[in-house]
Each structure stands twice: as structure tokens, then as C-alpha cells.
């Protein structure tokens, strides 16, 4: 059956870009499930044609970029075609004087960063797998960035998109200007959609100027409460740091202590470490350093130090990659992601710690922007009770609902555990509007079936 499909795809993109051999498809598995066919279009029009063929042939499609974040979400319930968008590279439009850029979906993030840096600009999308991920994949995966504290998430600087919808039509929303209320903001829906609404072909962003100096401030605290008090004081001050991330002693020990060029900071692996990033002119950075030192003293920091550009860049890189680092730190690592209100953060952390303590697995914690908690559980290899304990932990989270306004999901875990854990089990139950949105975008449920919230949006 794949033969006639392959022939149709080959007619569209050429034989060299359609693959059906098992060894070519192995790298395109999603949660262990391999597609029947891989197709690599080189233009939005080709991508649209592929989608139209897939719809006609009633095949399920999962679009992908560099496939760095495919492990997010539930296993697909139908996956016939891997639609790889990495050949759609290049900049579609960039006038640095406008501080906007229009870029094709397959553009690697790292390359985009270099192009922008040449013009002294950047995109505040410092997300995991940065060195390999594509821009289209990064948006579809919806991972966040330490810089969100100041710059917001992609929804705040994605200003337009072009995509192939589930009718096989090349469609768009927004535009290339920074202020625009013409038509529905469909591009916002693509953030974190895991390819379930449309195949992204092009994205338009607002870009930002690189500041003269980017520095950071590292402070360590005896315990979590002191670290939280410092974060709160910083939030109440006049300062507007770009990053406020803090990490547990276990995180510091695993990922910061011996990492060059951070090692020379001798970060205390017994302490909670708070990292604040800031940027601006030298005068502005000096003010930040002074005020942060004062706030740290008032919060009884054990140690505090200002770090300069290269160390600050290294720190940003570690924090950027943190969820990915956690997922690689053990054979069966699980990375949970929680979002809570700053006022309820302490309660959440306390509860998570008590649940985690009842399991045996070492855990590492990163708290981002006083609202996002990444918790990595790192079970020892070969422990057969691991799934049972993780499941117990995950089910315990239910008891927090109602007490704490909370989002909880499992970002990464072994694929074979997903059916039992259900990574989206705490998604809002009133997903009627989400289902309507999916139906409008993808009436035949062609894209990424079963991957997003609820397992199956069209039921």
C-alpha cells in the first residue's frame, strides 16, 4: 500500500526525498512507532501537495523538523507519514531596520541566531535542543526559555505564520509588522500544538536588539525558603531582570558544579542557587549588580557573585538546556513540568518534595520565573518498581488540584510508560473549545492524531 503512496509523493518531491526502507525510517519513530513513509518537501507548495495526497489516501501525518522534541506528548494513534520540513531553510524576509524577520520552518535555531547576531539582534527563544532544533519544531514543541521572565514566551513575539492546514491548503495569519489586528491570530494556536493543527512552513517574528552587556548574578541560599524570599524581593524591586531561575542543590551538583567556565564560581552543591540575568549599558548593569548584592545580603545569601558575559552566556546555555539535561541524566529519567502562581509556589514545592521523598528516586528541581517548575526524577537503572513509584507520585498531584491553581504535565518519560501515566491527565477537562479548534483546522484528524491533550481531540 505504501508503494502507490510513495509513487504519488515521489511525483511531488522527487524520488530522492521519499523513503520507505526500514532503516531510513528508524530515526523518525515517535514513541517507538515508526511511520510507513518519510517525505521531505522543499517548498510550502510541495508540503501542501503532500498533505492533500495524505488526506486523499486517508493517511496520518506527523510533521517534524530536526526531531529533537518528538518525545513530548502521547504516542500517536495513527502515524503513516513523517513529513520532514528541514529542507525549507533560509530567510524569507529580513530587514534589520524593522526588527522583524520572516523565516522558513526548517531553519535551525542556531543558524538563525547567528544571522540575527550579525545584525546585533536576537530572538529570545532560548529553548532546549537549541543547537539542533529548527524554528518550526521549536514553536510546535512550545518549550519555554529562561528569557521568558522579561521577553515572554513565543506568543509574545511571533507575529505571523504560514502553514498547511488540515484541508491541505497553504494558509496564513498575522503578517510581518509588529502591530497587527487583521484577522484571527491563528499563529498563536501553533505554539505548543505538536503539529496537530497544521504544518508550519514559515514564521514571522519580532526581533530584539542585543544589548551592550549581558551579565548575571549567582546567589546561593541555605534553603529553599530563603531562595524564594530573595526571588520575591527581586520581583518587588524596580529591577527587571531577563532571567530569574533557581535550582535545587541536586541540580547544582549535577549540572553546575563542574561545568566549565562555571566551575570557577564554585557553586555550592549543598545550597539552593538563584540565577538572575540582566542586560543593558555598563551603567545599567552596574546598578543591577549593586542592587542584587544588596537584596542578596538582606535575604541572607551564603554567597553571591556577579558574572560577566562569557560566564553569563554559559549559564544561560545550561538553564536553556535544563529540561533536556534532566531527561538525559538517567536511563529512565522523567521530567515533569508544573506551572503555578508565584503566591502558591512555596506550597507547590513543599508538596512536590513530600511526594518525591516518598519515592526513592533522586530528583532535581529548576524553578523558572517564579512560576514554572521542572522536576526531574532520576531513577537508578534496573529498579523494577520505578514505574509504580512514578505513577504514585503522578497520581498524588491530583490532591493539589483545587488547592493550587496548577498546570501539570510530563514533558519527558520513557515511551512505554505513557499509556499508564497519561502525560496530559491534568489538562483542563473542559476541552470542548480545543476540540472545535482542532476540527476547524484539521477536519479529517490527519495531523499528529492522539498526541495532544486528552489523547484524542476528535472523539
Amino acid at each position, binding site marked *: 500500500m505504501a508503494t502507490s503512496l510513495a509513487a504519488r509523493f515521489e511525483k511531488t518531491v522527487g524520488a530522492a526525498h521519499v523513503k520507505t526502507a526500514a532503516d531510513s525510517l528508524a530515526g523518525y519513530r515517535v514513541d517507538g512507532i515508526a511511520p510507513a513513509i518519510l517525505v521531505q518537501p522543499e517548498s510550502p507548495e510541495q508540503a501542501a501537495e503532500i498533505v492533500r495526497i495524505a488526506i486523499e489516501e486517508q493517511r496520518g501525518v506527523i510533521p517534524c523538523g530536526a526531531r529533537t522534541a518528538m518525545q513530548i506528548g502521547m504516542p500517536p494513534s495513527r502515524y503513516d507519514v513523517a513529513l520532514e520540513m528541514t529542507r525549507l531553510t533560509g530567510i524569507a*524576509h529580513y*530587514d534589520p*531596520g*524593522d*526588527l*522583524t524577520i520572516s523565516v522558513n520552518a526548517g531553519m535551525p535555531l542556531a543558524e538563525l541566531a547567528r544571522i540575527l547576531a550579525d545584525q546585533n539582534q536576537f530572538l529570545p527563544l532560548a529553548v532546549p535542543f537549541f543547537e539542533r532544533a529548527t524554528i518550526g519544531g521549536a514553536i510546535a514543541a512550545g518549550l519555554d526559555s529562561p528569557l521568558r521572565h522579561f521577553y*515572554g514566551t513565543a*506568543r*509574545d513575539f511571533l507575529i505571523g505564520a504560514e502553514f498547511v*492546514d488540515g*484541508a491541505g491548503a*497553504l*494558509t*496564513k*495569519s498575522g*503578517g*510581518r*509588522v509588529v*502591530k*497587527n*489586528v*487583521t*484577522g*484571527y*491570530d*491563528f499563529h*498563536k*494556536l501553533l505554539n*505548543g500544538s505538536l503539529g496537530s*493543527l497544521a504544518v508550519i512552513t514559515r514564521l514571522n517574528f519580532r526581533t530584539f536588539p542585543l544589548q551592550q552587556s549581558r551579565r548575571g548574578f549567582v546567589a546561593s541560599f541555605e534553603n529553599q525558603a530563603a531562595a524564594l524570599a530573595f526571588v520575591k524581593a527581586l520581583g518587588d524591586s*524596580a*529591577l*527587571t531582570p531577563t532571567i530569574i531561575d533557581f535550582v535545587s542543590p541536586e541540580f547544582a551538583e549535577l549540572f553546575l558544579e563542574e561545568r566549565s567556565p562555571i566551575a570557577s564560581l564554585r557553586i555550592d552543591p549543598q545550597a539552593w542557587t538563584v540565577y538572575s540575568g540582566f542586560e*543593558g*549599558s555598563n*551603567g*545599567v548593569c*552596574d546598578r543591577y549588580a549593586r542592587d542584587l548584592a544588596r537584596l542578596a545580603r538582606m535575604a541572607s545569601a551564603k554567597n553571591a557573585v556577579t558574572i560577566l558575559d562569557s560566564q553569563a552566556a554559559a549559564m544561560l546555555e545550561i538553564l536553556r538546556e535544563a529540561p533536556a539535561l534532566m531527561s538525559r541524566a538517567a536511563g529512565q529519567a522523567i521530567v515533569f513540568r508544573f*506551572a503555578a*502562581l*508565584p*503566591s502558591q509556589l512555596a506550597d507547590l514545592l513543599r508538596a512536590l518534595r513530600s511526594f518525591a521523598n516518598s519515592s526513592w528516586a533522586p530528583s532535581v528541581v529548576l524553578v523558572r520565573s517564579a*512560576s*514554572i517548575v521542572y522536576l526531574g526524577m532520576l531513577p537508578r537503572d534496573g529498579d523494577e518498581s520505578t514505574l509504580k513509584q512514578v505513577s504514585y507520585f503522578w497520581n498524588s498531584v491530583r490532591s493539589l488540584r483545587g488547592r493550587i*491553581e496548577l*498546570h501539570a*504535565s510530563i514533558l519527558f518519560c520513557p515511551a512505554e510508560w505513557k499509556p499508564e501515566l497519561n502525560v*496530559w491527565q*491534568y*489538562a*483542563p477537562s*473542559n476541552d470542548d*473549545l*480545543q476540540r*472545535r*479548534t482542532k*476540527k*476547524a*483546522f484539521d477536519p479529517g484528524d490527519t495531523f499528529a492524531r492522539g498526541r*495532544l491533550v486528552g489523547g484524542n481531540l476528535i472523539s
Partner: protein
Amino acid sequence: MNPSIISRLQSLLGPRNVLSSAEDLALYEYDGSVDRARPELVVFPSCTDYVSKIVKLAVQHDIPLVGRGAGTGLSGGALPRGGGIMIAFGRMNKILEVDVENRRARVQPGVVNFDLTRAVEHLGLYFAPDPSSQKSCTIGGNVSENSGGPHTLAYGVTTNHVTGLELVLPDGQITRIGGKLGEVLGYDMCGLLVGSEGTLALVTEIIAKLSKKPEAVKTLLAIFESVDDATETVTDLTAKAITPAACEMMDGWTLCAVEDYVHAGFPRNCGAVLLIEVEGIAEAVAGQVLAIAEVCKAHSAREVRTAKDDCERELLWKGRKTAFGALGRLAPSNYVLDAVIPRSKLPQALRRVSEIGKEHDLKIGNIFHAGDGNLHPLVLFDPRDRKQFERAVQASEAIVRYCVEIGGALTGEHGVGMEKNELMTLMFTDADFALMRRVHSQFNPTGLLNPGKVFPLGKGCGETRIRVSPMHNPAVPV
């Protein structure tokens, strides 16, 4: 309107919350735009449950519905194009909760934008979106239109400041999307609903972000001999990555009318001024003031003044925010356009606007958000002069077309509504509309909610429809 429906709504809401007489309804047939459409009934619910019941009753009897805040919108978004019932949210105007620690406010849709800022400013907080009409427009209206304002240059438009909504769907169902968190699992429904111009759902509660007041603010007035010098300054500021919180431009001759009205000390003999505001910590503000002044001087600014105190600052802003009203002094009628262009094309765009004015023998003023390329060309005309009116229509259309051609957009903050729905074809293809229609019909399957907006109806496709009231000219169809 069927009398039994009127009496059912009267018994639900109380007689004083239902308007049905012709003289009462006449007050609701307009908004801030030049369009008019008279509702058959205006109702004032005081809670979400009533809104739901009104919607259910309307759907049962196949009656169109439109939501309305303060009626300050500039694209006819709140006008009942299909007749029917207007749900006026003026009595749902309570601030339900201010959560200082999490910087959120939970408000009803009828809360006036600036009233929220006033309620929280003693806490060092404010609501960032600041449309010129902020002292009268409502937050519900801001959400529907995704309103902007001068300071959106730095802080973004309404969508960047809304984390949750309570909705009444067009079948009367009450639902919530988002929350205080500003995080979503699944699709970003707030991102879709904010700015959907009341065509997908009625908004009955909003969770808004509150922003922290900056430590320091400085307002500069840069005075130029020519419009070109001013626009080139803006382009250069953007290119040099200087990012003020607001950067507004007013041309010289419109400024005279503004000065006559507010007496803020604006010059009467210049080509244009830029009103630039910088905010942040004191060190950052001081540095930006110097950098901006340098760029202004490099583009032959005659003078760069810094407002010496809050009083002078507020007066300058009053001049900007009341400017369109002041221009009533210059011509019997005017038409404010709203379009966006890439910022690097500001000088050429303003030159083209001026040429279009000359080609059509019309005066066109410019008071706009220069920093984000959001033009508001102001076409002055006398509606009693039929030929002049027709030229005004043609000039307006030529300007909007030009903006889209050079990579811009139809509307930056006023919305599409019934003003520009026929122009949507300049930006969107049949495939784009097909998806928009599928989304629209998933949310609003009967089409009873705010009909005749956003989508082109194919009536005079691609034409600008500027209209004036019959009061001005009975010969002009409305």
C-alpha cells in the same frame, strides 16, 4: 422586535435594563466609527448568567446579537449590522479581584480601561494597554478588538496582557479559558479569542495582567522642520535598536489645532514633532534620553525638550490623546485611517500619503504611533460636497492599498469590523478565508453573534467604505 421577547427580557433583567423605544435605541446606533446601525433592543445584563439566558433566548428566536462596551470602537465592531439585540456591558463594570502578589486583576467586561489603572496605581501597578480612549473605553471592548495604544510599542497590545477569559458561547453555554497562570496545556484559546472582534463568543470576565510601574519616566518632545526629518529619525531610532516605551508623531499643521485646544506648549510653526517616552530604571532612562536626543539632532531637530515634571508630561500626552477631537476644528468631517507599515518604510510612506492627498486635492493629517509603524492618516473633507467626499473615499482606499503593498497590514489596532471587511481580500486568499470560516462556524455556527463583521460579504469587494451620517449629508447612503 416581538413583544413577548421584550417582556421576557424585562422580567429577567428588570424594565430599566431593557431599552426598546426608538429614541433610546437611537443612542446606540453608532460607535466611534462613521458607520451606523440601529439595534432593535438594548439590554443591560448585570451578570454572566443573565448574558447566557439572553443568548439562549435570542438563539431560540433566531435573533442576531452584538456585544458592546463603551461604543468607542473605530471599526463598527459593536454596531448591530444584522439588527437584533445589543448586549451592553456597561452594568457589568466591577473589578472582582485584585491579586497583588500575582499581579492579576479579575474584571467584568464593562470596567473602563483607565479605572483599572486608577484602582491599582496606589499599589505601584497599572494596566498597560492604553488606547487614546482609555478614559471611556472598556476592557471587554479592548479584548474584543485587541486594542493597542501609544505604549504598546514597548509593552504589547491587549492580547499580551490577558491570561484568562470567561465566555458565553453563541449557544448560551458558559465556559472559561486560561486562568491567572498565563500558561496553557493544549491550544492557546485566549490567543485566538482576544481580537476576534466579538465574532466567536461574548466575553463576560477577564483576567488581566497588571504591570509594575517603572522607576523612572522621561518624556521628550522633539521638534522638526519637516515630516521627512521626523520619520527618518524614527527609522534611525529603530535601526539603532533604541526602544522607547512610546514614540508618537504629529505633523505641524494638525499640531496647531491640537495646541489651540490643549495649550500644552506645542510649537505652531514646525513640520512635525515626535513625542517620545522612555521608562525603566533611572540609569537606563538617562542613557536612552541622551541616545534619543543625539539621533534627533542628527536629523536636524530644531529642539529636543524634556518635560520638566509630571504636569508638563501629562499635558503633552493630553494633547496627543485628544488630538483627533481637536481636529474637528479644521474640517466639517474627517476620517481616521488605521494601517500598519514596516517601520523602515516610514519616510516613503508618509511621502506617499502626502502625494495621495495632493492627487485628490485633500488635506491629510498624520497623528500616529510612529514607533511601531501604525499610521493614522486623517482625511479631512466636507461631506456636503459630494465630489470631495468621493475623493476622500478614493484617497483612503489608495492609502490602505499602498500600506498593504509595501508589506504592511490593514489595521494595527482599530480592528476590521464592518469598516474594512471588504478590504480583507487585499491580505487574505480564499484558502485563508476558508480556514477563518471553519473556525468561525465551529464557534458561532448559527452566525447570530455579531454578523457582517470581519469577513468580506462580497458587496463592493475591495472597496473602502467610508460613510458619514445622514445628518451631514442625506444624499450619502449609510
